[in-house]
């Protein structure tokens, strides 16, 4: 039996320990916001926070989740108040099809928690999620905007 929290709720799992966290979240916990894109940690669509850090859930077996705190896109906002990254994504009109965006947002939220004022170079080095729609230009703007919102809120 594996015990962990998802979005601060205590959970347990006693199924196949090889089950990737991604499929547990989507198929068993009913949290479909975390997306499947490749299954081999290449695209970032499945990004969640694992003990506070961005992690690609498609390659994380449930056996490794014991004792961990998992945060998914569904748990990022504070009630009705969106996380600065979510807010910035709306303000900059970043999503196109939107499929990659949960992963982009989770990766960015992690980046900002470590680096409150990321430069373009920091973004290039840290945000490696794919977007077939090519929304990168607005994603970059939204990352800078999110950093601003975060500072404004903290001030």
């Amino acid at each position, binding site marked *: 039996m594996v015990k962990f929290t998802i979005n601060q709720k205590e959970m347990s799992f006693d199924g*196949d320990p*090889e*089950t*990737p966290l991604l*499929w547990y979240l*989507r*198929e*068993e916990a009913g*949290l*479909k*916001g*975390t*997306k*499947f*894109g*490749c*299954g*081999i940690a*290449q*695209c970032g*669509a499945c990004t969640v926070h694992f003990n506070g850090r961005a992690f690609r859930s498609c390659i994380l077996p449930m056996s490794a989740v014991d004792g961990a705190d998992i945060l*998914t*896109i*569904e748990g*990022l*906002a504070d009630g009705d108040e*969106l996380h600065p990254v*979510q807010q910035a*994504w*709306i*303000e900059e*009109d970043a*999503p*196109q*099809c*939107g*499929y*990659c*965006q*949960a992963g982009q*947002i989770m990766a960015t939220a992690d980046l900002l928690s470590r680096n409150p004022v990321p430069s*373009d170079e920091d*973004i*290039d*080095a840290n*945000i*490696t*999620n*794919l*977007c*077939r*729609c*090519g*929304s*990168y*230009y*607005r*994603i*970059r703007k939204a990352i800078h905007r999110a950093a601003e919102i975060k500072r404004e809120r903290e001030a």
Partner: protein
Amino acid sequence: MQGVSTAFGALLMSRGAGGGAVRSFALSCCLSGADRSRPTDALRQKLILIGYATFQMGERDDMTGSYDRRNFLKIGMVGGSLTATLTLAGCGRTESAASRSAATLTGEQLSVFVRINSDNSIVIGAPTMEMGQGTFTSMPMMIAEELDADWSRTTVELMPLGLKKLKPGEEGSDAAKNGYDYAYAYQGAGGSQSVRRNYMTLREAGAVVRSRLVRAAASRLGVPLSALRTQDSYVFHDAEDRSIPYGDLIEDAAALSDDVAVTLKNPADFKIIGSSSPIKGAREIVTGEPVFGIDQEIPGMVHAVLARCPYFEGTPVSFDATAARDVPGVIDVIQIDRKWSEPGGDSEVMLHGAVAVVAESLWAAIKGRRALTVEWDQGEFAEDSTESINAKLQSMLDNDEGGSEVRVDGDVTAALSAAETVIEAEYGFSVWTHACMEPHSAVADMREDRRKVIASHQFPERIAHCVAEITGCDPLDVAVETARLGGGFGRKFPPDYISEAVWLSHELKRPVKVTWMREDDIRHDAYNRGGVSRLRAGVDGEGRITAWDHAIGGHGFHIHVFPAGIVPNFRARNYRPRNGMWFGAWRGPGHNTMGFMIQSFLDETATELGVDPLDLRLQMLEPAQRIPYQGWGAEFYDTGRDAAVLKLVADKADWAGRDALPDGYGRGIASHFTFGSYCAHVVDVKVEDGALEILRVVSAIDCGRAVNRLGVMAQIEGGAMDGISAALHQAIHVQNGQVVEKNFDTYRMMRIDEAPKDIEVHIVESEEHPTGTGELSLPPVIPALTNAIFHATGKRIRNLPIADQLRA
């Protein structure tokens, strides 16, 4: 469920502004309530007006058709609310399907174009599903404009699929099949045509509903119509400083008829069309709501993951499922034989030859499939490789074998021999796969009393046809639910991934969800055509291009594009080898690589002649002429509009300063006409020690009247990024009759670090009918990039992808 159905409808004749074409509308309005004679508080709170406008493809319909409009609306109590919904009978479905589906409809489901709630909020229906192209925002803007709705208080839902049976002799749209066509609006998303096709229809729908509201207000206030105006979902009577929210007029409006003329707005008065609106539904996206096809479920469903034959046109011979069946949760292992629309030639895959593992959970199905051993019939292309495919093309071109003359104007041979200068080049480009970020999936319930499919698809009627073909039912009996698409790009046009779920559910008599792994997607795509092309241009003593000869090796190119119709002696030949690979539509199909070849070759010609590449283009395009367009998606190609986007982008991107750029920097230009819209880019690059950096993209676009400026810009930005990604790295290779690449580790796509940090989009102010934006940015961006690379380095990129050619 208890309810009274009352509907009012009347024929309305309206003359579209400027268009002159007469369209007819039936507007059915109703009050929803359990008992109309006793209006309760609940009723007042939940009065719903539904405006329903039929769309006649092309010409008007006299409404003597087969619809019984009293059947359009279903009123009842659902979950304690009073609701009104459109029965599927109103969508042209048979009565049995309508009564079945009534059970699944709820008040939350939007029926048609407009639903006004008593709290003055408005729900607007979008005819086509959102896949990133922005139509969930732009199309409702057209309705909201004519309705004078408060845009900030509108939400958008997908209109359910409306199909009808064509009457004998009735002409259908290009999506019509087997005598069925869209009933209300063109609901397919592809070919950048959603806005172009639905612009008038949706405006008219908004105008019809507004007319009722204004007439209702006039009779309530006892004033003439001319004393009233509408704004932000209110009717205003300025003389006495009175106003009524639309939500208070529903009951009166519902009782009116539509036998009055409705005039569309003068575009000069537009407030919503032509503005910049962020996308509708953004909050759902950023909070992870389950809005995509892959997120959908049908209660009681099982999961299927398929091992598809890795060989082109291969199919399973036998399989060993012992280990697969040992995986806990695996229920069944089933062989599916390959089926395609027209065996041989340009066929479309209906079913891939495959073995399906069916399981209680998705993970069990994935594990089961991994444990499966299958013996394949390798088909006739088992020896194919990228090299052999290219060699075949080269030999066809060398020997002028198996080609056809697709277009011949004048006498190319004579013009080439009379030319002062002849320039020749060969271009090649790799095969690209779609790689929509959302892997394919579909969930189907083929039990006879259900016949339901939920999936992401660009053309929902194809789902209905697919079910009809597999189960033998009437397409009108299929309940199709389309979900948001995690990208389409043409891949969500084929029926293959739908057929799999339908076939399995039909076989197993229970709901089945099929999910594709990324490997399945990359190895079983309807790929973008790769190919080889040879171009020759003849130039006379005055520097004018007098001959253009294009020999194209490969399938499915748009031949009739620039400079067809401009260069007097023009010939295009096409050589199409029999191929195992399946090709389909990929963003800007047939244009995406034509733009690269033509606009790069033009640049070469300019260099050869020692003239500025922009000047050469303008010399060909001016003076402006409107050339009848022989290709798909437009009636005319206006060279003046093409010249105008080039001039605009040149001005904004400081084309004149090009020669002053430092060493290692380059600036390139290109334009292309795609599906009725014009786009030009200027790309700036820096190349240092073989390392390419794309500094800036400046774009100009003429898509007629821009409906949502912010959305138009998103499409141009995204298309440019997409094209640059394809040009930089994307390549599918073939070895031993199979696709080599399997996932994003080997099929390399651009990430944010390589993406240009600076993109500027300029929209031409235009009064022309709006045309599409989804596909037109991509074809010209690749040559603008490769032309910039040439300017920076003197190296001409004639083969895609660019990959490490600059390091050589």
